[in-house]
């Protein structure tokens, strides 16, 4: 009984234990500046994971997130010069729109999201290649600093990215906990037939979930391109699997209706700490990937709340 109550807290306990473990090896890790910077660096990944949470929360998945971010780095780099700050809006609209297409294909054409988002990702990748002329693009540094400089600076010792992350987390948490949209998504994730029989427009909410996922992937791409002062059709590669891992390790399983954005925040930090620990534990280069896999199994085994999974598939 006590363990049952203890379970929902496992993700952040795991996080603290990991931080403590690394801290024991090297206490420089525990310096606030270091931890803040570590958190700041993971922000683009976090934002993407935040979006993915919505897709996974309704029991789907969004494999287009990475290609979406790639496309957005290109869009941002191409149109910053002509559009200025409005390019941010364009990016979010593109992400939202492509997400809606994924959602539409999933709900109306009954293509599983695993496939539909992969396909839409292919479309986004083609668009990115076309727009970029298959080259890496760079933004004008002056203009980037003028328009988006606030995104990547520091306030005191806190990286500004963290404020953006906190803001988005607050907004998504509000959506999840306090709005009809969040409630509907939970119902769809936990019991879609019942949600439909309660008169909810399930298809619309699912499309919205994918659209939000797309929009957040776009914001991740925008932030990343600002950080890098440029874009390329492959520059955000390597985001997708860590982002999925972050969501899962946080305790939002693929069955839907369980977990949420707060879990993803913790999951992302767990991923960041595991990565950093490779450095602090002096793991050999050739061993890192294997160790990552093994640690991942351990972390997931610890963090998922099996009581809420009726069947483990």
């Amino acid at each position, binding site marked *: 009984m006590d363990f049952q109550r203890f379970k929902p807290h496992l993700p952040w306990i795991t996080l603290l234990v990991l931080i403590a473990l690394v801290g024991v090896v090297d206490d420089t890790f525990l310096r606030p500046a270091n931890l803040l910077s570590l958190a700041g660096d993971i922000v683009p990944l976090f934002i993407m994971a935040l979006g993915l949470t919505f897709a996974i929360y*309704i*029991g*789907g998945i969004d*494999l287009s997130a990475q290609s979406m971010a790639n496309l957005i780095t290109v869009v941002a780099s191409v149109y910053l010069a002509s559009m200025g700050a409005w390019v941010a809006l364009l990016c979010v609209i593109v992400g939202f729109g492509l997400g809606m297409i994924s959602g539409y*294909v*999933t*709900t109306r*054409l*009954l*293509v*599983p*999201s*695993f*496939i*539909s988002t*992969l*396909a*839409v*990702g*292919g*479309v*986004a*990748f*083609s*668009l990115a*290649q*076309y727009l970029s002329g*298959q080259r890496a693009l760079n933004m004008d540094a002056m203009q980037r600093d003028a328009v988006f400089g606030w995104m990547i600076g520091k306030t005191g010792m806190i990286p500004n990215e963290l404020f953006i992350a906190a803001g988005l987390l607050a907004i998504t948490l509000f959506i999840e906990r306090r709005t009809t949209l969040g409630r509907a998504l939970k119902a769809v994730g936990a019991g*879609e*037939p019942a949600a439909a029989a309660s008169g909810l427009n399930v298809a619309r909410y699912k499309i919205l979930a994918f659209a939000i996922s797309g929009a957040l992937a776009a914001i991740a791409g925008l932030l990343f391109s600002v950080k890098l002062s440029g874009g390329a059709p492959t520059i955000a590669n390597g985001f997708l*699997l860590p982002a*999925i*891992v972050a969501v*899962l390790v946080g305790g939002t*399983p*693929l*069955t*839907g209706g369980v977990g949420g954005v707060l879990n993803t925040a913790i999951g992302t930090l767990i991923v960041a700490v595991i990565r950093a620990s490779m450095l602090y534990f002096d793991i050999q280069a*050739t*061993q*890192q*990937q*294997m*160790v*990552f*896999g*093994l640690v*991942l*199994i351990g972390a*997931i*085994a610890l963090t*998922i709340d*099996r009581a809420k*999974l009726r*069947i*483990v*598939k």
Partner: protein
Amino acid sequence: MTGRFSREAVIRWAPLLVLIALVILFTAINPQFFSLRNFARITISSAPALMVAVGVTFIILMGSIDLSMEGVISLTAVLFCMAFVRFGGNLAAGGWLAMPLILALGAGIGFVNGLIHVRLRIPSFMASLAMGFVGTGAAVLLTGGDIVKVDDDVFRGLLTYRVLGFPLMVYVAVVFLGLGWFLQTRTTLGRNFYAVGGGEDLAHASGLNVRRVRIAGFTLAGVFYAVAAILQVAKLGQAESVTGANFMFISITSVVVGGVALWGGVGGVWNALVGVLIVNTINNGMVVIGLPDYVQDGMLGLLVIVAVVLSTDRRAAIVVK
């Protein structure tokens, strides 16, 4: 009643019809597409992919998913080459020993994968994803990043020796496809995959040892991945830690395009075959008709959606996620 029958028939045969339509389409644009030599090329690229698809089909039939194939293929391919070289470097001298060894190893990795999924009660998506990392990681550790080559003309005969226009490896793939079909239709294990996919708790209540079936499924998939690894080595004459790259998404896409339902219980190895052929035909055809390269990813995506839409039984699909 006849109307209904024909509707079901159309859905059942839709993937094959899509394949035929694609062939006609590509042929119409570039008649060179329609030649025995080109079909042989498509089947060469399809052969390893088909083995992966057959393996993962069993998993998907159970309503689970397996994302470990990239790591498993890299690891088994690398170890196969190493063992092959160790055992004399050519088939006759003892290199053949590497084959059963690697198949057993594939089974072993699949077994561990299933064990982690079932015993630790981690959903297969996550367990297999992590196992994939471990597999690739182990391959990196073994090779240190180097390429391991197999230079044996007899073994490479799988690629170079042709019967009726098709290389031997295609026939090997067909034999294993037949084995997959046999397992699926004629053995208890194969039928139990359908039972688990059709209703896991019901199967459990009927006294079926669902855990054992699941672990067996992952083990079997591991064997097929190992076959894919051997064919991949036959095709390229080498293995490295990225040999398995790109197999994950493409194999699952193929299986679904072929008409296997991701929610389990529907489809089989024939669907995997058709799906793999569809995807590889699209990839080959897009180049053959001269589609600009930057359009190809998007076009593949669109065609995949169309294929899945056509082959989905809308009335049977209750909840699509």
